[in-house]
């Protein structure tokens, strides 16, 4: 379980998060949705500690993350996997070296054990024969999959994904969504995904949190999203003609 209590964050005096309190369920796919500029990426990066919050508490199970020292945070982060919007693969390293990187840094595994783990992670994200390729030689979807493989290399307890579908075609987006969802349940991970893709909400959203102008406006399940009565959420969810028709059917 990951819990945020009364989070505040501003940049150069401009408030970006205002009194955000939310609980992300354990071993579930939690989604943060909201329009571009709503503050969802800042919330995600604040949760993992890439941004220091101005006020508020962040809990990882029974650990108060915001009160930890630099070294304590470093230790906790070894239980966190993160998939970045652009993949954030190390461009100086091959796919194999990228996935092996956390193992090289934090384990005493033998070369054979590391190789086996790399192979397992790549198999899990349905990639083969790409070990020796550099990130520049991969498509956007493949880069995301390698990013997931790297994120799960050390069996994390928490997985964060920042807009995993950005720049992908609808079909590949669904493949990536399902992959993250399966991994969440197979490895019993608490996953938080940042997205503005309503397909993701409907496909894999077990808990959905809606952020608007830095304020949490709503939280609930994907099924409940059609009947919230929240004007800002309706405005976001039913922005397209297809979504409005879907709502009419409901």
């Amino acid at each position, binding site marked *: 379980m990951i819990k945020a209590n009364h989070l505040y964050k501003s940049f150069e005096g401009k408030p970006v998060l205002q009194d955000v309190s939310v609980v992300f369920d354990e071993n579930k796919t939690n989604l943060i949705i909201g329009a571009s500029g709503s503050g969802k990426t800042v919330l995600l*990066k604040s949760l*993992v*500690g*890439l941004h220091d919050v101005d006020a508020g508490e962040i809990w990882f199970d029974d650990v108060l993350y915001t009160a930890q020292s630099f070294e304590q*945070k*470093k*230790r*906790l*982060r*070894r239980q*966190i*996997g*993160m998939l*970045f*919007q*652009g993949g*954030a*693969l*190390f*461009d100086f390293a091959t796919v194999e070296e990228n996935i092996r*990187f*956390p193992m*090289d*840094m*934090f384990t005493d595994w033998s070369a054979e054990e590391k190789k086996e783990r790399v192979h397992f992670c790549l198999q899990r994200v349905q990639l083969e024969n790409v070990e020796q390729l550099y990130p520049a030689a991969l498509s956007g979807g493949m880069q995301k999959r390698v990013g997931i493989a790297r994120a799960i290399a050390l069996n994390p307890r928490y997985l*964060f994904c920042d807009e995993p579908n950005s720049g992908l075609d609808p079909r590949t987006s669904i493949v990536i969504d399902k992959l993250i969802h399966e991994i969440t349940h197979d490895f019993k991970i608490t996953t938080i995904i940042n997205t503005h893709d309503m397909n993701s909400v409907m496909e894999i959203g077990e808990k959905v949190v809606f952020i608007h102008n830095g304020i949490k406006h709503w939280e609930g399940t994907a099924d409940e999203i059609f009947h919230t009565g929240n004007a800002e959420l309706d405005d976001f969810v039913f922005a397209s003609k297809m979504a409005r028709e879907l709502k009419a059917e409901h």
Partner: protein
Amino acid sequence: MYRIFTLIGQYFLLMNNVFKKPDRSAVFWKQFVQEIEKVGLSSVPIVAIVSVFIGAVITIQASYNISSPLIPKAYVGFMTRETMLLEFSSTMIALVLAGKIGSSIASEIGTMRITEQIDALEIMGVNSANYLILPKITAATIFNPLLMLMSFIIGLVGGWMIALTTDIITPAHYIDGLRMEFKSFYIVYGLIKMAVFNFIITSVSAFYGYNASGGSREVGRSATNGIVSCSLCILIFNLILTHVLL
């Protein structure tokens, strides 16, 4: 003025993170060796080319400026040696390296910053400043003083080639000048300067790259700012070190 003090404060905060025990010694030493190739060995050709030409030019200029028959011709070799040793092989070569490796470091780390690769390191629990910057600083500070020695020797060879191929000065006079009143401390002085300058080049350019934000334009700007700041720091520390050591 406030901005300068803020930058200096941020620089020392970054250095505080850089100079920590590496997470994995084996990984650090592997990177250290790779960085010797990137920041040191790859600079050998440019240092050699610049040094041989400058050594030759100093010899010609010294010869034309010593027109008095009362001054022995051997002083041409002496002047070439002293100029190369005291100033050119350390300060001028450091300015050349600031352009070459400084821009490379700032743009490499800056690109890693804007493509979230540094964030990825942080999320894994890696001290990104230590992992990325410490091997570069140590490799340049330890290895690159050898480039100063190399530049010095090649510069003298450049002057000797002028003596050999022209009638400006005889090779015998030139060699006599090279041997004249040699102070071995000048070698130590040059090595110390080169070590300090290389620390400045790698740490300052890494600082600008590490704090890059935005897009490719900002990475270019951070590389430019890095080179300008390195060059200024080199000139200031050249003055301070010369005053203190000589």
